């Protein structure tokens, strides 16, 4: 296998680069000098066991955690991301594993949470937000009807589509998906895969945290594997076998280094 397998153009500036990222909790180095990057239209899988540090790494990009050290570049320029608002400013959107929905609010209120549409007088404009929500949901999940119920009453798939709509609506350039299919059925998983393909074509870069090696092979262009907070290595998924990936995850062995 060779590099030419991939259609992603990595000759230009990366869409996003996280360089030498560090984060510790107490004495534990959750993320230990990790560097990853992402190009337009690319899906980079972030792999590793539970506790490998992949979620922490991504949360530093989404602004949920403050980094201890390291630099973040968007389109080649260094940016300061100190809270979720900063991340949103750079069109970095996140679909959390927990979905991060306020269960007591309806779909529109969740979609626009923190970025409400307001009337000229500054009051929240619920009818306008509902109309926009109907538009985006019409694209993502045409069967969705329940606009006036709290999202607690929705099915897992419906809730997922609200969380995805939130990321897509605000023109994400960099999308972080934390195990987006963990709670979904076969059909719903297929729809998420289709959506990822669609977003790729639009030139959006996606960091995909996932456990499922099959899925990573199918959806990702590259995979960065982490173990105990460190980066084991980044590989083109077409150049490695599933066993290679498993070896990286479980044993922390980089197949390239083995070959060399």
């Amino acid at each position, binding site marked *: 296998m060779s590099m030419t397998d991939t259609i992603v153009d990595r000759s230009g500036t990366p869409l996003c680069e996280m360089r030498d990222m560090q984060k510790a909790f107490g004495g534990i180095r959750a993320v230990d000098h990790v560097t990853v990057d992402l190009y337009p239209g690319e899906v980079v899988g972030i792999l590793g066991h539970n506790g490998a540090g992949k979620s922490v790494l991504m949360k530093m990009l989404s602004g949920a955690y403050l980094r201890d050290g390291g630099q973040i570049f968007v389109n080649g320029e260094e940016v300061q991301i100190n809270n979720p608002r900063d991340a949103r400013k750079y069109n970095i959107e996140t679909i959390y594993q927990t979905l991060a929905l306020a269960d007591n609010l309806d779909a529109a209120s969740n979609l626009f949470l923190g970025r409400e549409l307001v009337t000229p007088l500054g009051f929240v404009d619920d009818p306008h937000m509902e109309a926009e929500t109907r538009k985006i949901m019409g694209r993502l999940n045409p069967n969705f009807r329940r606009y006036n119920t709290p999202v607690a009453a929705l099915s897992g798939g419906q809730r997922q589509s609200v969380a995805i709509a939130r990321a897509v609506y605000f023109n994400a350039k960099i999308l972080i998906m934390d195990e987006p299919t963990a709670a979904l059925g076969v059909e*719903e998983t297929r729809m998420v895969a289709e959506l990822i393909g669609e977003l790729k074509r639009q030139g959006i870069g996606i960091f995909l945290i996932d456990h499922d090696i099959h899925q990573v092979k199918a959806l990702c262009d590259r995979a960065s594997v982490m173990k105990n907070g460190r980066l084991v290595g980044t590989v083109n998924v077409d150049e490695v076998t599933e066993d290679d990936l498993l070896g990286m995850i479980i044993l922390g062995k980089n197949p390239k280094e083995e070959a060399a």
Partner: protein
Amino acid sequence: MTDTPNSHDASEPTRLKRTFFQTLEFDTRLLGMIGAFLLIALIFNVLTEGRFLTPRNIFNLTIQTVSVAIMATGMVFVIVTRHIDLSVGALLATVSAVMAMTQTAWLPNLLGLELGSPLLAPLAILVGAIVGTIIGAFHGWLIGYLTIPAFIVTLGGLFVWRNVAWHLTTGQTIGPLDGNFVMLGGIDGTLGVTGSWIFGALAAAFAAYLFFNARRKKVAHGFPVKPLWAEALIAGIAVAAILGFVWILNSYDIPTRRLARMFEARGEVMPEGYSTGYGVPYSVLLLIIVATVMTIVAQRTRLGRYIFAAGGNPEAAALSGINTRLLTVKVFAIVGFLCAISAVVASARLNFHSNDVGTLDELRVIAAAVIGGTALSGGIGTIYGAILGALIMQSLQSGMAMVGVEAPYQNIVVGIVLVVAVYIDIVYRKRTGA
């Protein structure tokens, strides 16, 4: 991401069988609470041989409810954000003491304002509102930024502020209070019959406009709306309720001797056979303004949206970029401000400040919010619910007092009602899946 085929949505066109009440899209919880209130009122009316539902008693009931109801609207925000405030009664006492001292001692002695000056009441209220808001914000800072549990901060506050009040007045009862100030207490300041009708007409017109405007917006976006007759019926009920309330308060006549004294005070002689009603008390007007503003904050502002989001899922709110710590400060500052407003009403109603003003109010306020459907698990609650809750509690207490039930027994009943009301609410939520 497919919908389950049996998803039940009221707006689905396939669902044609709709009952009369479904078409009206009534808020069933509100309906249930009004039903409970009417039932209590009717039972006491029978037990008191018609004395409970007189204009006089309804007038008294409303002015007795105001102080607790104002604080209860703020408690809704606190409980919705998964906190609690045990200090509202004590905070009320401190603010009451500050305002009493401001108008009777500090302003006259330090600024040389004469007793009876028209500046006394507004300045005292301003000082009280600032003090209440600052203390509330301070509680919010301890809770939000220092992450001390609200239960502990406000339990400490209960001890501190109750006794700061005592310290400020050196334990004395302070009174009589300024004449203008006392007008906000209830019976000593009302809109009068004509003023009340004007207010009622304006309020009714405003309510009708809100219904019309909400419908117009829905139509503009092409959302499903209920049939015009249903909308008109509900708007009609709201208008009738407002005007009916004004009519009842107007029907309570000012006693002839009191009326004569009022004419004397103005240097006039009361015409023979003259009579007029009290109308809407200023304190009730204050409650209506607070309720309106708080409802707008809850439903139509970002602040309100964030309060409910943070209550429903604090983590999600934070990940959405909401500053939940500052939000906590704002919520407790609002409660502090509302305690100050309640302190005005409570001390003005008594015409003096006493050490025990607002004692046990924290429990009444929490009970009112909870009976009104505010869930302690957070994220759920309404302003109108809390006010109805306060009204239900006050009705129970004064009804039992009229029947001759002794105070300790009244408290036993109120305690039981609180627990039963919350249980009914839990069952209701499970049934409706809300």
